[in-house]
């Protein structure tokens, strides 16, 4: 069996806000088709870590490599700033608050990246965007503005927007946390189908069901460090650390 190719590698990521050290050296490797769930209680640094991967948050130090392109950060200064936009366009991101552009329709939201960043011709981008919106079940909502869509629908548009860039991996930052409970399912279903398709995904989440059943690896952060890491079945069946045991007993 050949070893799957490494898509994304983060090495020794540190992040401080002023004197508060939020991330105390985290390393993570995502191989092709990996679905990694990052768990942790609030304040564990899980969202910050995810945002460091595409430099929405600039780490204090560490190294991120995406598809062979690496950015080394020392003293809060990335060494090759010009690669940042490149790395970002290779990593899709789905936000907790959807962050759709409110002045553009669903279709325009999905077309924006391919047309503006990848310079694809309009017609081509439109065909692709229509196909992607169909893919997330929104073929009848393409020309609506975000304010006319429910939270679940908005998040599905946001997923289509990330997919339109044909990313190497997609980062999900608590994608269902801002949704009404009855809308969580439709978004999780789309995410599950992406995982089944073999997409590489890194997901910060509170959805234990998703972490257990869909992900190939679970990472548990505690106080800015990885406390425990492994395949979900093993980890949930016999937690090795007391903090993780307490965490799963609380969220159940």
């Amino acid at each position, binding site marked *: 069996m050949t070893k799957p190719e490494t898509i994304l590698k983060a090495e020794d990521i540190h992040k401080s806000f002023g004197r508060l050290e939020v991330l105390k050296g985290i390393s993570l490797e995502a191989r092709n088709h990996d679905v990694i769930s990052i768990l942790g209680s609030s304040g564990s640094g899980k969202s910050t870590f995810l945002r460091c991967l595409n430099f929405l948050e600039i780490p204090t130090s560490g190294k991120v490599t995406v598809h062979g392109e690496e950015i080394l950060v020392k003293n809060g200064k990335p060494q090759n700033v010009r690669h940042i*936009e490149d790395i*970002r366009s290779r*990593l899709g991101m789905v936000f907790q608050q*959807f*962050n759709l*552009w409110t*002045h553009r329709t669903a279709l325009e939201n999905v077309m924006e990246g391919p047309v503006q960043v990848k310079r694809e011709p309009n017609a081509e981008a439109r065909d692709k965007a229509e196909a992607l919106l169909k893919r997330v079940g929104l073929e009848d909502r393409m020309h609506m*503005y975000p304010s006319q869509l429910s939270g679940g629908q908005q998040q599905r548009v946001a997923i289509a*927007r*990330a997919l339109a860039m044909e990313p190497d991996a997609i980062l999900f930052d608590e994608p269902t946390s801002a949704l009404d409970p009855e809308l969580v399912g439709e978004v999780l279903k789309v995410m599950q189908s992406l995982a089944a398709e073999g997409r590489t995904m890194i997901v910060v989440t509170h959805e234990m069901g998703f972490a257990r059943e869909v992900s190939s690896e679970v990472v548990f952060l505690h106080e800015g460090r990885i406390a425990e890491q492994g395949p979900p079945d093993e980890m949930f069946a016999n937690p090795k650390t007391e903090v993780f045991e307490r965490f799963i007993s609380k969220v159940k």
Partner: protein
Amino acid sequence: MFELFAYGDAGWGDEILRGLAITVQLAIVTLPVGLFLGFLAAFASLSGLRPLRALGFGYTTIMRGLPEILTLFVVYNGAGLLLNKGLRWWNPDAPPSDFSPFAAGVIALGMVFGAFAGEVLRGAFQSLDKGQVEAGRAIGMTDRQIFRRIQLPQLWRFALPGLGNLWINMLKDTALVSVIALDDLMRMTKVAVGVTKQPFTFYLLACLIYWAMCVLSEVVLAQMERRANRGIRRAV
């Protein structure tokens, strides 16, 4: 009484209308100048560079703190002096030339409008949704693209009510140029009052005209706001 407003030598209708035309021209020419200065001031005060920021804040603070009429005098007299100095440096035999009151009015009113518009635009800029900017970053857009494609189109929606107020204020402030001998609506009204000794009639007429312009502006602005909010108001 209506012969007072007759068009032609007998009445004041044509003079008042010509004054109105000057007032409207002045306001319309001032608007782009003021908006341009407003954008400059807003960018300066949002800049990461400290000297630029100081310049932006300095400009808005000073201009907002001066009575408009004083600004107008300073521009009219000061700019006139500078112009003549410049002319004589270039050609020592140049005859003294007068700085046009219209240009002085545009510059002075534009500077005042710009200072207030700078604050309106800065506020609008800061109330834009940061998440949408992050979404732009996350797909690899450059800062320029984010500004042009995400921020600028939405800036309008937040700035329009404030800019509308400034426009109406400026429209009324044009009356100040009558003191530097520009034949605007206000000055023609005063002339008419001086000649006919009928202050109440002509001042009332001027009131009605200014007020009509403001009402018209408000109607247009309300429509622009409705357009700018397309897709926003129609919430689920």
